[in-house]
């Protein structure tokens, strides 16, 4: 009992602040606004994160370094119920997906190709291990959980994942819509293929891309929505496994191979 009391006293400040931050963030609620083609949707999670960072030692200074480190350990546990929810959602969707076939599954591997370009660029820009976390996937919520647990909550890789997550949250939607219309204008891809490609693992990004595509190809609109949604759902199901067993090992290998050649140590 004494142990629990001591522990509570130490973490009390973090818990209470977290509760207040959550209350404030949820009161702000989800904010969405239209920007050109797309919609930007900002969730309470983002506000909680931003305000919490503002309270940190580098800015307002409400939290000391020690407390930041204690919070790291809490993140590991706090994200587990969410990961359970993700698994449950996926499990509920399995029947729908079994009906859909191989192209949908195979295009998931297309999601991997990106790191062959992004990791070299990241290294050339001078990034170090953050590049691994930033480039192994498009980094949505699933990857936050994965990175936190595979690399540790305090690691450069996880910071990379978070950075891309935040950027994706803010401009990802608009950019996806823009990209989809750009790809459609090349006339190189069938609308079905573009529809499937829209499912990257982020609902809002998928919505932006499919809405734009449906606008460009009205005769294929229903197909595009269905394929985009299915592909997104599939990424939701396989995302964590692809990440863990394929993407992360691949990213690590790529990094180890390229870092000596392109990394800032060379210069």
């Amino acid at each position: 009992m004494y142990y629990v009391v001591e522990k509570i006293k130490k973490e009390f400040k973090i818990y209470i602040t977290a509760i207040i931050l959550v209350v404030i963030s949820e009161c702000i609620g989800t904010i969405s606004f239209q920007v050109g083609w797309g919609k930007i949707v900002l969730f309470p999670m983002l506000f909680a994160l931003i305000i919490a960072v503002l309270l940190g030692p580098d800015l307002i200074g409400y939290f000391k370094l020690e407390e930041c480190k204690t919070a790291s350990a809490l993140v590991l546990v706090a994200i587990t119920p969410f990961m359970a929810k993700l698994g449950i959602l996926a499990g509920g969707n399995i029947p729908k997906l079994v009906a859909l076939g191989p192209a949908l599954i195979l295009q998931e591997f297309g999601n991997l190709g990106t790191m062959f370009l992004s990791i070299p660029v990241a290294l050339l820009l001078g990034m170090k291990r953050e590049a691994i976390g930033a480039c192994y996937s498009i980094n949505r919520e699933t990857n936050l959980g994965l990175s936190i647990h595979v690399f540790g909550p305090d690691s450069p890789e996880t910071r990379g994942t978070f950075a891309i997550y935040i950027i994706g949250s803010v401009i990802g939607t608009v950019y996806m819509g823009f990209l989809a219309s750009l790809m459609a204008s090349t006339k190189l891809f069938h609308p079905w293929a573009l529809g499937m490609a829209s499912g990257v693992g982020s609902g809002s990004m998928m919505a932006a891309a499919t809405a734009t595509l449906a606008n460009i190809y009205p005769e294929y609109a229903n197909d595009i929505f269905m394929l985009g949604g299915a592909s997104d759902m599939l990424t939701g199901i396989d995302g964590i496994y692809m990440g863990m067993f394929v993407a992360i090992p691949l990213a690590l290998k790529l990094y180890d191979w390229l870092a000596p050649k392109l990394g800032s140590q060379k210069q």
Partner: protein
Amino acid sequence: MKYRDWLLILFVTSVIMAISNLIGYKTSIIESIPGVVILCGIALLGQFLSQIIPVKLPMILYVTTLGLILASPISPISDIVLQYTNKIAFMAPVTVVGAVTGISIGKDYVEFKRVGWKFLVIGLLVITGTFIGSAIVAHMVLKVTGRI
């Protein structure tokens, strides 16, 4: 980490999740309780499994897979699991993660400001690569399987 640490943190997380669900998604605390209990139960069970199963994998893989199995058609309790956890909004458990993560990365703010622009470039690159990569594979497979 000991189980009592887990229980304490999970308990606080549960309370905050229920609060999120209430304020953000208008679900009463009473209604949220079974869902929250199920989610935390799966989390704990996942942690337990990761310790007793000899294969070395991060415990969240067990947690997510357990959730997947319990909600899938082969599970006898899938209806119950889905019914109660559906009351917990998708983003509700994430808000508290945002808060605690923000606290923990607060110490890196200066560093991030210095290198932030690089992540913007990479972020756009990653989204672009993912989309184009998938489109190429999808198009090729559709062609090869004769659907287009």
